[in-house]
């Protein structure tokens, strides 16, 4: 996993609520057996017509937002399927942060395991951010993971966001859970020896 420390980037606004993982990456694209290459099919059915042409009214096809690495989305982002491919697709398409007022549980975990930061803001902040981007599509936000702050142009105070301290360390250092879990070998073996509920 790549390290994440700070990011200054423009935003791609997607003011839709309950964006499900079938929209992020439709099931028919899940047939690959590697992690790479899902980015070109990110939001495939919103982004392309049936014959593969870009739909001009979808935000990812809007020239003003090209290259922006922060996705700003309505509440309950990532609901539905457990497919980690959704987080891989966002990452592969260049996104490093998704801002929403809350995330579906499995998506949040998958994002963190992919090196994609799910940044949870209040509903009020989220609506404020949509307004900022509507006014200036090039507005650049700064995410400082160590400080757990989101800085917005013309806002007097940076926004604080919550993140599990362990997960924060993992992102900053590019670690994942496997190394940690393997280091717990002795405790896991001891635990297995006293199991009493498997018959």
């Amino acid at each position: 996993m790549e390290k994440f420390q700070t990011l200054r980037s423009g935003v791609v606004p997607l003011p839709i609520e309950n964006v499900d993982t079938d929209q992020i990456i439709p099931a028919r694209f899940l047939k690959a057996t590697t992690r790479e290459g899902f980015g070109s099919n990110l939001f495939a059915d919103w982004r392309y017509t049936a014959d593969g042409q870009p739909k001009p009214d979808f935000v990812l096809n809007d020239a003003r937002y090209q290259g922006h690495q922060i996705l700003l989305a309505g509440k309950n982002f990532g609901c539905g399927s457990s497919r980690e491919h959704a987080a891989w697709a966002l990452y592969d398409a260049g996104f490093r942060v998704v801002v929403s007022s809350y995330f579906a549980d499995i998506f949040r975990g998958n994002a963190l395991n992919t090196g994609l930061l799910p940044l949870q803001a209040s509903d009020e902040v989220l609506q404020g951010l949509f307004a900022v981007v509507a006014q200036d599509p090039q507005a650049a936000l700064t995410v400082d993971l160590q400080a757990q702050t989101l800085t917005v142009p013309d806002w007097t105070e940076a926004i604080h966001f919550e993140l599990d301290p362990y997960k924060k360390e993992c992102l900053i250092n590019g670690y994942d859970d496997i190394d940690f879990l393997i280091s717990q070998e002795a405790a896991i073996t001891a635990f297995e020896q006293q199991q009493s509920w498997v018959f």
Partner: protein
Amino acid sequence: MAKTLFDKIWDAHVVREVAGGLTVFYIDRHLIHEVTSPQAFDELTARGLTLRRPGQIVATADHNVPTRHQDQPIQDPLSRSQVDKLTENCARFGVELYGLGHQYQGIVHVIGPELGITQPGLTMVCGDSHTSTHGAFGTIAFGIGTSQVTQVMASQCLLLDKPKRMRITLDGALRPGVTAKDLILYMISQLGTGGATGYFVEYAGSAIRGLSMEGRMTVCNMSIEMGARGGLIAPDATTFDYLAGRRFAPQGENWDRAVAYWQTLYSDEDAVFDAELQFDASAIQPMITYGTNPGMGIPLAANIPVLNGGSEATSFDKSLRYMGFQPGESLLGKEINYVFIGSCTNSRIEDLRTVAAYVRGKQKAAHVEAIIVPGSKQVEQQAIAEGLDKVLAEAGFELREPGCSACLAMNDDKIPAGAYCVSTSNRNFEGRQGPGARTLLASPLVAAITAVEGRLVDITQYLN
């Protein structure tokens, strides 16, 4: 101290607590399938790791498989390569595989319970969000991403923060035509798709107690559709009767010891939940969804709501535009072209019996394509043994071979763009059943009646 059912099982599986409130949490059973496992096996290999407990993993091929001619090679090269990769990985790593052609093959959440792999008090995971299904047995079961699949493969553990506990109590006798599917669609319509995010939900009350195991699985299956990590129902005589004699259920003395333990798995009377909800089950009517998330459900005979502004308005309008519906209109009389009976929500023998009992001696409407995809080879064989295949065929329904099929349309079973499908599956997301497909979620009974009538009707008028 008084404990909830969830706490009892959770606490028994804590290997250790680590700094920051996270838990090293032990997983007893791991189910895998072809879509979310290949990258996990590759990651293991890349790190020079191996499976810690291959005997605690069971594999099947379900998401990608065709539902016709399963005895022949899979035509789609990508699907075939994914299924082949699963076969190779299972052989290489020593995992039991119930692949295509095996007598136990089927949808991962159907075969776990019917083989007795799913048992009360266990922890189970699978790289699939509908792993919540297994909670019907009083099991902590939840879906995980592929990175977590790798973690469980390597360590038999996950690093988790403990979810909050919610209890939903449903008391009251069910009205005629109301089934487990209607109960869960109703609950999701009340909570919304994110209403239980962060929670594990225990379902309780007389209406839940009165359900068969198949019905309980339908309820727990769709817990994820209200955002819950999982659902749980305390095991009881219904659970034990279902499990007795199953292939991997405890036998002999072990069975008696198991039942004695399982009988301790309930929420203590004074246990405290983080959230409690109560619903009157006798007021619930046959349900259907009209929109593009499972929370957009209404009684079949009611009108689509009218929304007055708010942050949801954009999403609501987009959803109705996709479905071709208007706010405030009734769904009754809408012509339906496809009926899909299947998926890990409703593809068990009881579901097939419900459909067969209604359509016996009737004919599906000429313009409807009605397919039934059993959840497993065992369900298929049972249906044939009971003669349900003939009843269904005579009514014009096509009984296919087992798999996930048109629930997520990874195989050839797709609904065409713009067409309406009444589906017993779990998600009505845009494009879920094929690009442009319009899905209305409902019970197997509603699906059967719709297939015969060829349009949406108030089913309460059609019951004996």
